[in-house]
């Protein structure tokens, strides 16, 4: 096309931008699309499900739902499957609650959220974020654990029996993490609590798996989980004022 040759070297001579064109506005339109990262399919689905784009964004930025964490969880559970197939002890059932508790402790709270105080001033309340994240982490860990359990060919009692203790252990980890503002304390509390429970069961009934299979433990587990839940509610109701 002719006219190209006019352009080399001479284009700046056309003069300044016309007064009625708002170049700042144009740049903002360009920057708006160039700078942002498009939300992935998981976030888009979550936004529709939760009817809140903010809550969806908070969910996908959960530390214990990030890819690295999930892969570590899968690795541990696969190892558990391996051990189970090798030794006959239902390792998946013993490991899954502890792994889930660690995930819950790292899902929420002042210990893992550097902008904690700011998060407390948001329209999407931090309690909603807590609820959604805890449910997501718990649900995901339960699903992964169930898959691993089934893969390891465990009996039904072992496949599902650990879900209730897992609830209790997760509640303990969350309560400890929230109250002490430290996710590590939460993990330690959850892991320690679970180990103590297993060992107590072993001492009382001679099997490591007593903690999982005894049906009369179900109510105590759930009651304990409810208490821990109440602690979490209380700890998140009163915002900490001292700095």
């Amino acid at each position, binding site marked *: 096309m002719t006219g190209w040759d006019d352009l080399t070297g001479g284009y700046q001579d056309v003069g300044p931008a016309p007064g009625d064109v708002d170049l700042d506005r144009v740049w903002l339109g360009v*920057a708006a699309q160039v700078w942002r*990262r498009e939300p992935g399919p998981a976030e888009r689905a979550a*936004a529709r499900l939760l009817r809140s784009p903010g809550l969806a964004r908070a969910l996908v930025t959960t530390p214990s739902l990030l890819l690295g964490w999930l892969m570590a969880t899968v690795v541990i559970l696969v190892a558990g499957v391996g051990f189970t197939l090798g030794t006959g002890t239902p390792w998946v059932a013993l490991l899954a609650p502890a792994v889930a508790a660690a995930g819950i402790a790292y899902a929420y709270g002042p210990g893992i959220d550097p902008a904690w105080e700011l998060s407390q001033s948001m*329209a999407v309340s931090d309690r909603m974020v807590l609820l959604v994240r805890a449910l997501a982490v718990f649900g995901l860990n339960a699903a992964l654990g169930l898959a691993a359990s089934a893969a390891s060919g465990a009996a039904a009692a072992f496949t599902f029996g650990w879900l209730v203790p897992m609830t209790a252990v997760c509640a303990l980890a969350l309560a400890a993490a929230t109250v002490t503002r430290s996710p590590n304390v939460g993990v330690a509390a959850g892991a320690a609590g679970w180990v103590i429970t297993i060992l107590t069961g072993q001492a009382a009934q001679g099997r490591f798996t007593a903690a999982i299979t005894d049906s009369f433990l179900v109510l105590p587990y759930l009651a304990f989980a409810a208490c821990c839940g109440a602690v979490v509610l209380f700890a998140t109701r009163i915002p900490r004022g001292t*700095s």
Partner: protein
Amino acid sequence: MNVELTELTRRFGRTQAVVGVTLKAGPGVFGLLGPNGAGKTSLLRMMATVLPPTSGTLRLLGRDPDGYGPRREIRRRLGYLPQNLGYYPGFTVTDFIEYFALLKDMPPGQVPRAVAAAIEQVGLGDKARAKMRTLSGGMLRRAGIAQAIVNEPELLLLDEPTAGLDPEQRVAFRSLLREFGQRATVIVSTHLVEDVAAACSEVTLMDAGRMVFHGTPGELIARGEGHGVGDAPLERGYSAVLAAARS
């Protein structure tokens, strides 16, 4: 009136952080001055709905923040920059501001443009896709200011916003404050007295939880005449008022 505080008090155990503060503020830029421990941060936290008062009444943007619904409505129209703002290291500046824009319930269609505008307004246009862990202290502070203004708040609360900013950036920041002050109530807590002089139409001075002065910068300067210690007129007024309050 965007802010109406009546005898607002906040106690932590036996410590009185804020005692009987009464304040009314409409649109404009208001300075909150005082030494460390004067209660400025606690007062701002109460206005940011992060801390409930122990006693007294608080009305923000015509609503009582005690109820969940009104509190959510206030927070949608609020911008807050805490004194200590952490950041998510792996986030870019855009991610960071967008995160809080979404948590403030901004309509998602408006968010990208509003985030871009906020970034340009604080002069971080060159750093929009830089990871937050690569930013200097002053840039992090400006990112914090950007998240506070992204939703065009009606109530803007800034706690020590100019920490780490160089003089040129502080000048730019003050003109940003004046621009917001035309439509919104902007409350700036600072111990840098000259920040206040340049941008604020009214100043509140706090000491040991109490309000010891409220008026224009000119009135504060007048209080310092003949008494006060300091290099600048406003500093003299500041020290004169504090001395009088403590005697």
